[in-house]
């Protein structure tokens, strides 16, 4: 049975697949099982998924994700290269944007 892999943006970027694979509602990507060969053989898929913080989905589950009907949480990656600190990054980004906007207004 074929598997689709839901993985975060850092994994997609690492594999250079941001433009090739579909992004789901929560900003993560749906990858094909063959994409995981970059991390190791498919016989070690469960270890690979722990490493990258991804989950394997069946075809109908992948479709649910694609349509946004069900959104599954991703586990935290054990490999620090793929750890996404969602709340922290978002806050920093938001504050940076606000600061920039304020500066622009002042200059104007």
């Amino acid at each position, binding site marked *: 049975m*074929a598997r*689709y892999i839901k993985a975060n943006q850092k994994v997609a970027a690492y594999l250079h*697949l941001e433009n*090739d*694979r*579909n992004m789901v509602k929560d900003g993560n990507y*749906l*990858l*094909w*099982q*063959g*994409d995981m*060969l970059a991390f190791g053989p498919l016989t070690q898929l469960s270890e690979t998924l722990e490493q990258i913080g991804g989950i394997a989905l069946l*075809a*109908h589950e*992948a*479709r649910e994700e*694609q349509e946004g009907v069900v959104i599954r949480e991703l586990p935290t990656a054990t490999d620090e290269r793929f750890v996404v600190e969602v709340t922290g990054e978002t806050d920093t980004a938001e504050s940076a944007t606000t600061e920039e906007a304020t500066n622009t207004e002042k200059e104007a």
Partner: protein
Amino acid sequence: MKKKRFDFNFRPLRINVSFSVDGSVPDRQTYDADSNEYTPDYTVTPAIIQPNVSRMDKDEILLPGRINQYLTNVRWYEIVGGVKTLIASNNASYEITTSGDNAGRIKVKKNAAQSIPITLQFYGEYIDTRTNQLHIIQGTNQIFCDNSTAYMPVLSLNAADTTIYNPLSDADTQTVTASLKLGTDECPTDKRLFVWEKWNPNDLVWAVVGAETTLDYDVTVSTDGVSCTVNRSLMGADLYLRCRAKYDINGNPGSVALGDASPCKVISFVRRLPKFEFDYFGVPTNIPADLMAVAPFAKIWNANGDLPIPERELLALWYIATNQASGSLSYNLVAQGMNPTIPTAALSQIYGAVIGLDVIDIGPVAAMEDGNGVVFEDGDGNVLLIH
């Protein structure tokens, strides 16, 4: 002054195009009808085809190698079932990269129908900078879909592909029963649904039996939908019946859309009268002088003996002609039926007369309509049938 013109003689540029699958998603997928799943499903993980266009300059002026970045007018066409369509930029099923190092790259986001490949035809232009010659680069790549269903449902009907109906001796009705098999087992009843359709020769379409309540007087589908009864005496000259099956492994066959890949079987019924012979009897060669009429009777038979009710499909036509010493005789139609009364007025006193019998097929039963194709009905809404 003596002048002569000189030109560079460039040798032709050699252009090559090849196609490769970019990434791990293959360009061949499988479809499992049991789970209604494609593997891989291109709508979830698209397939990417990359044309690789390269040049080789024998004069070694231009560097050899990939020239995708120089391509212009990059286009792709989709060919499905012999129909070629230009893939427009707003086509949601494809994404085409038209410039840059990967110009010509196409992302396929739709699935192919089983056994009907999608042929993708690439078109690009390249200008040879030495001579300004335009090179047109074309090539094709196919997306295949194979069947991976464990058991394909197979539909069968308990009737011959063509049934010859002899109205003189065969039973009027014939019940056709459908069967859907998965391997050697009959498909569970809750997972399949049969759809019976009749060919409409006027509109040239298949119409579901029962949809046209007035004209479907010759076919009836049973309440469970498994069988269909054809009244062959009312069907006309012929009838074409199609049965298709909806199959859903999850027990919801009603939601399945019928398509070209659905299990399907077409059978036909054809009315045909077998060869028969006829003669008439009951008239003496010498008729008494005061006889005003004669009453012959016709007999019609075939290899199985006398036909039991020949008037149902056949009509006896009686002719009489005054006999002459020479020349051809002129026959007049004087009566119809198996046992008519024929007046002897046409008998010549000297030469007598000749009585002829002809038997014709009165044809199949059909609904009566007016010049505008409107069917006649009685007061209760029943259609009127005539031969």
